[in-house]
């Protein structure tokens, strides 16, 4: 019986396992290729992009990238270096993720706590409408509105632009807040706590895992996002935008493949560190339908 159980799924394991091993090998070879070639001199890369470098330029290449990687939106724009770009990306990711999380939490909380208000149903309907009925291709109009409101090229505008509640996380937060027993709230209110205090000190701490996971997922997504900053705030320093323009540069002393690959690893490291630290929380928290508390 035990052998039969063991045998069950053996072919599946072999076939799918082999595919996954191929996937893993490609991933490993991507990292090998990036690291090894980031330690070569430009001529070494042209001569042999597969083998180990004859002479390692690890410190030289990474030091060059950290000191010389820069971003300039246009000829008249200021030059930003790597620390500015990291700060810009951090600001963009924090503001955008913060915008989504705060707006979604506030609206979901209002809808759950005040079900008798007609606007609660309206807000719920609006969230559902945005999630289920796609209106795509409003980019030109959005650009015009953003320019008209003075949001163009402003880092702080990320918070306002992403202050949205029409997303899948609304449903998750709605369910999570709804799942909190009412007794806590009622007990606090009997003790004279205000609505704000009940929300901030009693209710939301109970769903802090859900809020934290949503923030983390959104933070990573916005840290990696280059298309939004490139189109709405091209002059604001951003590491994803900076590395992309560097990748297409053909002029300058560092416009060579080993430096470009070194830049990729430098940019990748902080977010990989975040991932390694929060890996269990992040992967463990994403489950059916999204995130569990």
């Amino acid at each position, binding site marked *: 019986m035990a052998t039969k159980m063991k045998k069950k799924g053996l072919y*599946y394991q072999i076939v*799918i*396992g082999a*595919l*996954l091993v191929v*996937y*893993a090998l*490609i991933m490993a*070879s*991507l990292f090998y*290729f*990036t690291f090894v070639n980031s330690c070569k001199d430009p001529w070494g890369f042209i001569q042999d*992009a*597969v083998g180990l470098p004859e002479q390692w330029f690890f410190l030289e290449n990474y030091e060059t990238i950290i000191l010389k990687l820069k971003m300039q939106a246009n000829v008249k724009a200021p030059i930003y270096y790597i620390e500015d770009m990291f700060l810009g990306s951090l600001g963009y990711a924090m503001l955008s993720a913060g915008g989504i999380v705060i*707006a979604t939490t*506030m*609206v979901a909380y209002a809808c759950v706590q*005040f079900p008798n208000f007609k*606007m*609660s149903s309206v*807000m719920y309907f609006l969230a559902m409408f*945005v999630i*289920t009925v*796609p*209106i*795509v*291709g*409003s*980019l*030109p*109009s*959005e*650009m015009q*509105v953003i320019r008209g409101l003075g949001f163009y090229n402003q880092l702080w505008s990320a918070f*306002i632009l992403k*202050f*949205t509640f*029409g997303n899948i996380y609304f449903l998750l937060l709605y369910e999570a807040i709804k799942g909190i027993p009412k007794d806590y709230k009622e007990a606090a209110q009997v003790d004279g706590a205000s609505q*704000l205090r009940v929300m901030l000190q009693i209710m939301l701490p109970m769903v802090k895992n859900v809020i934290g996971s949503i923030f983390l997922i959104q933070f*990573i997504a916005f840290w*990696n996002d280059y*298309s939004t900053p490139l*189109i709405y705030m091209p002059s604001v320093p951003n590491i*994803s935008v900076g*590395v*992309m323009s560097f*990748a297409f540069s053909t002029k300058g002393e560092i416009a060579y*493949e080993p430096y470009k*690959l070194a830049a*990729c690893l430098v*940019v990748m490291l902080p*977010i*990989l560190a975040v991932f390694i630290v929060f*890996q269990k929380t992040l*992967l463990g928290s*994403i*489950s*059916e*339908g*999204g995130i569990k508390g």
Partner: protein
Amino acid sequence: MEFIRKEKKKKGNWRNTLFFWCLIGPALLQFVVMYLFVNFNSLIMSVRAYDIESNTWYFYGFKNFESLFYDFSHLPELRYGIQNSFIAWSVSLVITLPLGLLFAYYIAKKFFGAGVFRVLLFLPQIISANILVIIFKYYADAFLPTVINDLFGTKLFGFLSQKDSQFPAILIFNIYIGFGTSVLMYTGAMNGISKSVLEAAELDGTNTLQEFILIVLPQIIGTVSVFVITGVTALFTNQLNLYSIYHKNADSHLYTVGYYMYREIQSASSYASYPKMAALGIMITLVVAPLIICMRRLSKKLNPLED
């Protein structure tokens, strides 16, 4: 006494109402401006044109739409764009989705190395797509051809620099990086299936593949349908990472509608090219919205448990 109680209740109601509006007010305002007005403005913009010399807008009727219809049949970028957008969507439906499900089942069953594979499949979601693209560009052009040529004695050149291999290479790259979130979600859904159901199936003598097809898939159809529907939403906005790979210089045979639109807006130096793009946006919505509604209805029929 009754009067005081009523007064207190009134005061409490007033405070609750104020608190409620403080919670929803900012998000509602953002919604009105950045969603309702933006989309309304998109409609208006599609029937207007912009005069660069006088910096003024004027009524243009349906000429933006007429011009787009002309472009659909004459502009190779748009012709290829539509074709490639559908190819990319079909590939994600026929290859990425089934493979993702098979991988998720492998992980859910905790077969050999499941934990490691789960992290590896999610890794492309953590690393910036444009970083992966930069690495992939050199990998596909410098590393892979050399390795394959050395191993098999072929004479291959860079996959992204040869016209014939460019689009397949881009599709493969997008498949490769496209598993992360969906596999995690599918695994989560599979872990939620009642053990007694699986045990009963096992007692009935089902093999792994039968269990996957007959027991697991029907139970997670709701989660799968979410990804299928999301895929339709992205049908005409998916850029296939073309902007990261080729910046503004992708060959016309590689275009997707999403890339065409993003590139046009990103390169626009004035409002002049916006109206035509707004018209394109409306046309995309008119195609995609009914598709989504149909797919949602179909998904509800397949999954009666879905609310």
